[in-house]
């Protein structure tokens, strides 16, 4: 257990190196983004060099990396290069929004996926199966931005509903908060349920054909019991993997959805940070999502070993 926790450190280090290097390869930097972008008439190389020096961008790459690492070791993310404010302050509100949306969306996805997947599997090749599959695949096939655009358009025209202007945290006003996030959560949840449904269905089908299920059936156990005890337990395994991995993606990857529904979440912050070449903020975001992802992963692995005794980690 502790070993697996410790194993996260090299992975995180790898993530850190990768994002650090990637950002430096991408052309442009925060100073150019700030002073060349607005079509200003007067540009001064002197000013730009000065700003670079202030941000430590004139130092050798390895030095910049070690400075950053030293900060990380103290859990100090530093200041945003674009705004100069502490990164924790930049992230705070957006993280709350993204986390809540991710939780809501994956709850919706699972509530849809698991029953639908089971239903489709036990009624394989009947119209029920077809209907479930068409429903879930349609969700997978519709581009989320397109769906979002249509959704908003329909709601605007028929209900005069407009996307919220600002995010209200759950602890401030739960009702308003849920009213804001339910639409994007539904759009995202429906979409992600498709992956789970098809996974659930195929896993169920596989498990239903395993020898031990057949044996159990030969022994005359009541079919529903088999389904519950054996089949479900084993079928849920890959579903759990896929869904939990998706969960980590939901946290930082809902760029288009956030754009369409006017949500100031981590996805848009990512895009902003990259387009401003805000190295420190981008790095911090990547580290945050990566850490989050690794922890989710860690818990999935534990669950794995618990559910399926065939798998043991050495």
């Amino acid at each position, binding site marked *: 257990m502790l070993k697996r926790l410790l194993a996260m450190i090299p992975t995180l280090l790898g993530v850190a190196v990768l994002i650090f290097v990637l950002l430096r390869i991408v052309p442009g930097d925060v100073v150019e983004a700030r002073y060349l972008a607005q079509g200003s008439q007067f540009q001064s190389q002197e000013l730009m060099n000065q700003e670079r020096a202030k941000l430590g961008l004139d130092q050798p790459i390895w030095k910049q990396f070690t400075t950053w690492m030293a900060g990380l070791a103290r859990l100090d993310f530093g200041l945003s290069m674009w705004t100069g404010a502490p990164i924790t302050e930049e992230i705070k509100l957006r993280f709350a929004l993204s986390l809540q949306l991710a939780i809501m969306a994956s709850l919706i996805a699972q509530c849809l996926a698991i029953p639908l997947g089971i239903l489709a599997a036990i009624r394989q090749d009947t119209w029920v199966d077809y209907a479930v599959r068409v429903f879930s695949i349609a969700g997978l096939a519709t*581009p989320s931005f397109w769906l979002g*655009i249509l959704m908003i358009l329909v709601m605007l025209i028929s209900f005069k509903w407009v996307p919220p202007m600002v995010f209200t945290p759950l602890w401030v006003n739960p009702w308003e908060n849920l009213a804001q996030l339910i639409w994007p959560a539904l759009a995202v949840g429906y979409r992600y349920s498709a992956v789970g449904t*098809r996974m659930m269905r195929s896993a169920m089908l596989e498990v*239903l054909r395993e020898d031990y299920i057949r044996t159990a*059936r030969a022994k005359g156990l009541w079919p529903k019991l088999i389904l519950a005890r054996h089949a479900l337990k084993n079928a849920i395994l890959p579903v759990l993997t896929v869904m939990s991995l998706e969960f980590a993606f939901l946290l*930082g990857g809902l760029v288009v959805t956030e754009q369409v529904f006017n949500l100031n979440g981590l996805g848009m912050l*990512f895009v902003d940070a990259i387009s401003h070449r805000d190295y420190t903020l981008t790095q911090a975001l990547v580290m945050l999502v990566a850490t989050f992802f690794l922890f989710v992963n860690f818990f999935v692995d534990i669950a794995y070993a618990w559910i399926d005794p065939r798998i043991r980690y050495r």
Partner: protein
Amino acid sequence: MPGSTLESAIAEPRAAQGPRGLAVVLEFVRRRPLGAIGAGIILLMAMAAATAGLLAPYDPLANDYAAMLAAPGREHWLGTDAHGRDVLSRILYGSRTALMVGLGASLLGATLGSLIGVASAYFGGRTDLFVQRIMDVFFAFPVIILALAVVAVLGTGAGNVILAIATPMVPRCARVVRSSALSVREMPYVDAARASGFGHARIILRHMLPNVMAPILIMATAFLGEAILLEASLSFLGLGVQEPTAAWGLMLRGAAVEFAESAPWMAIFPGLAISLAVFGFNLFGDSLRDALDPRLRTQ
């Protein structure tokens, strides 16, 4: 009721794959109507891509401001866009872009990913741990960020978009394939193959890979649809294929959103094209998996 279905599901063995050629196709259509519909859609798309030059009524790149924002009608069946370009012609030509990027990216991503996944599970131990750590590093990046970074480094354009889309797919495929391969590794026939002194490559390719085909297929077909979608999303965000090239995602960008209310054909038809294509690939892939899954066949 559920009980009886369950029983039949458990008891009824799949017929062995016997017939060949046309018979296979007919059998597939009969047994898997959804898959056949999917295949039909894919065929339609492939034909559109192949014959776009003949079918398209207009030059997909020619602006005609006299006909800007024309509604669907006799002149322009699906209307025109903000620059007066024929929407139908752009959709037909757009299928080329979609197919090229989709196939390229999913082939690249699934092949690399499943090889890495199976090999990792097969070798186990430190190799596995090391590969998993490397994969984790990539995996921990949100897809869109990785794609953004790849596009930012390499630049836009179809070739780079394929790379950008395939990159995040590799670790995802490797991960899922590995988790299936882990249990396969413990199977007696793998041990037997090892005992007979077969080379690693042979065991991986001949003995393990076929037995994890199901997840690979699920991933690969999902990738195909997803790649088309991701290409559309990237183009929608302005990071994919570039104007004036005809591409579905591009057609949904900018004016299409703004004019959604007064000129809905600009947004609806390309959106439908994307959905239909992705739907077709997924439907087909889904049924293909049911048909090919070794565990669903009788041994």
